[in-house]
């Protein structure tokens, strides 16, 4: 079981994400943004949080044009798994791998605290370790986490059960309280909260562990 974690200039959750994958049993390759290919035999790609390229132009916009993101897009088009967390979610929307966009928080403030996150579906490799309706405690740390999509996209996300997580109490103005969404084939997850920051008892909470364990379960070669 192998995971690749992409490192952009300005990524700062890359090592935390790698540790979370390792604790769940993955071996992890760190992949530099200038690489044009992913390592052979990768089961999942992690796009970490941080401030890629200083958030210049728009959060994730420059990262989305980097060589490794072309390889990432090809990986997801082939049906490969990927998870983008925080800035990683912004990168996934900027590449068009996931629909919508992340706007400035409605209250204009950077918010850094643990929030209640409602699991909306357990029907994915990422969320099958939870029950739909569970409320878990996961930290958020973002300035631009206000999820926006037009009515048509929101209806599609709902109809296809692709909303993975919503906020129990909306902190940032996201439409329909959306905190995380899945791709059409349910193999790509983008979310603003940080499960990798709730994956060790030293973090003050371990509600994120189930996400990485569930992934390990699904991706283990039978």
């Amino acid at each position, binding site marked *: 079981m192998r995971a690749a974690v992409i490192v952009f200039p300005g990524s700062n959750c890359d090592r935390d994400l790698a540790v979370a994958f390792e604790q769940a049993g993955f071996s992890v390759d760190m992949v530099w943004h200038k690489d044009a290919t992913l390592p052979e035999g990768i089961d999942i790609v992690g796009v970490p949080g941080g401030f890629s390229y200083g958030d210049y*132009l*728009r959060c994730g*916009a420059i990262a989305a*044009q980097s060589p490794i993101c072309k390889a990432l897009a090809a990986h997801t088009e082939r049906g490969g798994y990927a998870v983008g967390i925080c800035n990683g979610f912004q990168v996934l*929307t*900027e590449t068009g791998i996931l*629909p*919508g*966009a992340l*706007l*400035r*928080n*409605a*209250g*204009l403030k950077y918010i850094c605290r643990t929030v209640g996150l409602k699991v909306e579906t357990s029907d994915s490799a990422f969320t099958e370790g939870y029950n739909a309706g569970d409320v878990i405690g996961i930290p958020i740390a973002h300035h631009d986490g*206000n999820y*926006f*999509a*037009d009515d048509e996209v929101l209806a599609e996300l709902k109809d296809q059960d692709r909303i993975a997580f919503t906020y129990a109490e909306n902190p940032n*103005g996201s439409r329909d309280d959306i905190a995380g969404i899945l791709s059409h084939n349910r193999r790509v997850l983008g979310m603003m909260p940080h499960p990798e920051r709730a994956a060790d008892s030293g973090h003050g909470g371990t509600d994120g562990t189930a996400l990485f364990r569930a992934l390990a379960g699904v991706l283990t070669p039978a």
Partner: protein
Amino acid sequence: MKARVHVMLKNGVLDPQGEAVRHALGAMGFDQVEGVRQGKVIDLELADGATEADVTRMCEKLLANTVIERFEIELI
């Protein structure tokens, strides 16, 4: 040749920064202000032979996120 690109949030997309500026102007006594939208201006210096169609592609691929933003190109 130069091009000036104006990038604005689409109508219907909440602009919290514009709203904050509107509140501040109101608090300063500028009661005339009924709405504020904040955007970006990007100036491009272009080689001879560049066309507006080139700039349009730049906008669609990078300079604007057309999910939430609209753009206008001014050749100057």
